[in-house]
């Protein structure tokens, strides 16, 4: 085996990336690439898992059996997505339990959108339509991410998620065409989730220092602002179609660029929520911590049971 120095290894690595050759778990990679991926993929995993909480809040109160079955299937998908992504971090040498403990200690972040409360059934519609819609827009380019296991996990996530946005829009459409009270519910949910959904794309490009390196490594393919614009352009027409109003007085179509111009995002709010001061940050982490602690006996019992089963088998 020829021994290469770090400089040569780095050059060969970047050459592979430039030629769209995927990086696989046992390949040499710069430590910063590995750490960036562990951070990003684990944050993504945490978002899937914490994301179950705001929707889980409404499973027992879904308006009918069909809606309940749909919501259950969606939340079950999110659990699976969390698993695919935690598995991807493990291929990079991250320890599963450490990763989860980092979430619980507040060291690791997750999408700030899940720190907002779900106050009415219409929020299930707004989340599916806007939050999953924004997530899909973020995730589709990740299917081509340079790290093989992440890209493959995301392909699966996107495939499963395609119904999530549609079921949300369906809820909104139904409410928007319902009684005046139902329409108000839908509008209120849109009012509360619109701006946090725009924040899901992350800070503006000028304030996103890691973006450039991630683009060079092809972890990221489009800038935060480009994706946000794409989301606004797609969503405005959808809202109009069901007779709901985007809560932005500055919103207008710019004929010259072919894009919607939208109002200033309240970045102060964004950073406050990221820092832990959103309406539900504490509740979310408490719920996750409790789930881990209360599930401990199950994990131990499963190990004890498998040991017992092994003895029986060998007898």
């Amino acid at each position: 085996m020829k021994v290469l120095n770090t400089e040569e290894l780095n050059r060969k690595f970047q050459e592979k990336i430039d030629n769209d050759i995927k990086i696989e778990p046992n390949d040499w990679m710069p430590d910063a690439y590995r750490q960036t991926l562990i951070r990003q993929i684990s944050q993504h995993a945490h978002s899937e898992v914490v994301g179950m909480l705001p929707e889980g809040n409404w499973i027992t109160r879904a308006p009918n059996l069909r809606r309940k079955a749909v919501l259950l299937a969606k939340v079950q998908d999110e659990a699976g997505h969390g698993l695919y992504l935690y598995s991807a971090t493990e291929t990079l040498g991250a320890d599963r339990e450490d990763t989860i403990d980092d979430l619980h200690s507040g060291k690791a972040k997750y999408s700030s959108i899940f720190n907002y409360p779900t106050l009415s059934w219409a929020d299930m519609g707004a989340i599916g339509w806007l939050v999953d819609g924004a997530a899909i827009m973020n995730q589709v380019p990740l299917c081509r991410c340079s790290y093989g296991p992440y890209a493959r996990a995301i392909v699966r996530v996107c495939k499963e998620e395609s119904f999530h946005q549609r079921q949300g829009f369906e809820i909104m459409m139904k409410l928007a065409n319902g009684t005046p009270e139902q329409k108000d519910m839908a509008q209120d949910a849109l009012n509360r989730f619109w701006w946090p959904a725009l924040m899901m794309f992350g800070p503006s490009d000028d304030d996103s220092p890691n973006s450039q390196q991630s683009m060079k490594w092809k972890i990221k393919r489009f800038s935060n602002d480009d994706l946000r614009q794409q989301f606004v352009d797609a969503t405005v027409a959808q809202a109009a179609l069901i007779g709901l109003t985007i809560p932005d007085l500055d919103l207008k179509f710019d004929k010259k660029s072919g894009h919607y111009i939208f109002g200033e995002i309240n970045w102060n709010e964004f950073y406050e929520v990221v820092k832990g001061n959103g309406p539900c940050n504490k509740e979310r982490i408490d719920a996750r911590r409790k789930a881990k602690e209360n599930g401990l006996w199950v994990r131990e019992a499963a190990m004890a049971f498998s040991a017992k089963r092994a003895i029986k088998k060998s007898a």
Partner: protein
Amino acid sequence: MTKKDWPLWEIFIRSKQGLNHKHVGSLRAADAEMAVENARDVYTRRSEGISIWVIESNNIHASDSSDADMLFEPSNTKVYRHPTFYDVPDGISHM
């Protein structure tokens, strides 16, 4: 709290009769039987498969990726391994 991670399992799914099992990902489970049950729930909720293999990740032995150039050198000098190397006279068919 002490660490008691379940072992890691690699999951392979046969999508339909006649095709081979293909690696789809991994998961943790206390033993092989529970790994199969979990794999069923995680990887086959939408008719993705009809058969599951699980293998504990520790039991997978792989080639060294840094040896890949040497191991999988395309052997371009050994063109005689391919049928196009050989002349077949006109009039010969089914060969």
